[in-house]
């Protein structure tokens, strides 16, 4: 899930190899390493179910799924008599992350100053905005504080339709 760089902010690169970090550092770019934390904890499973009458396919975390909404707990049920299991898969919500050595590094644009807003196209941190309904953000906006990028959680609320 991406918010894209609608505000045309300077783009922070993400690299996963030490040679790449060294090349950018030699060119004068600031950079810092971020560990990829608790990757294995993110793993879950997902069921692909097919409605026996309509043929509708649905992906769900389980046959009984409960989640909280403003009106209280919502329970969704997919009983065996109505929904046929097509496949159960192990998933990692960050499955599309590049090859994982347990760390990544952000490369700052050359002219970025402390306090500047930046756009991170490939987030290393596992950030889950509340509006993403348990999905992880792939990108984000933040502020460079001179040592690290502070991700602005409000940036995930900015893309709204009202009416």
């Amino acid at each position, binding site marked *: *899930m991406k*918010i894209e760089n609608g505000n045309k902010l300077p783009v922070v690169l993400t690299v996963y190899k030490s040679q790449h970090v060294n090349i950018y550092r030699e060119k004068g770019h600031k950079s810092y390493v971020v560990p990829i934390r608790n990757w294995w904890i993110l793993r879950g499973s997902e069921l692909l179910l097919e409605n026996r009458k309509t043929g509708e396919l*649905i992906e769900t975390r389980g046959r009984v799924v409960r*989640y*909280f*909404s*403003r*009106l209280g707990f*919502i329970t969704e049920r997919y009983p065996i008599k109505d929904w046929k299991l097509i496949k159960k898969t192990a998933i990692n919500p960050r499955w599309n992350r590049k090859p994982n050595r347990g760390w990544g590094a952000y490369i700052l644009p050359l002219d970025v100053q402390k306090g500047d807003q930046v756009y991170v196209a490939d987030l290393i941190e596992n950030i889950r*905005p*509340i*509006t*993403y*309904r348990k*999905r992880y953000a792939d990108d984000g906006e933040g502020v460079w504080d001179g040592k690290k990028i502070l991700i602005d959680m409000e940036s*995930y*609320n*900015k*893309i*709204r*339709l*009202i*009416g």
Partner: protein
Amino acid sequence: MTLKLFGNQLFTSSGEFLKTIACPKNVDTDSLKPDGDGNYVCKMCTHKIFNTDEMSELELVNLLRRHPGACLSINLANPLFEHSQRAATKKDSDNEN
């Protein structure tokens, strides 16, 4: 289950037209004031704006069937909404208002 958003037109997952998301005053989030109940009040027209961030598809569909003119605040990053920039075609909806 996702709701389909073609441009600013909202449909159920089965293609039933629900609503066109359009504000005559073109307000943005700065014009919304929290009402203390998880929703908002519009500073321009004082109408209630329903916050869809934590609604399920069923809740939202029932709301719009009971109150077709209800104003919504939709976060385009919310995976409940499958968003496409293109306009809806007759094939997308069999029951457009």
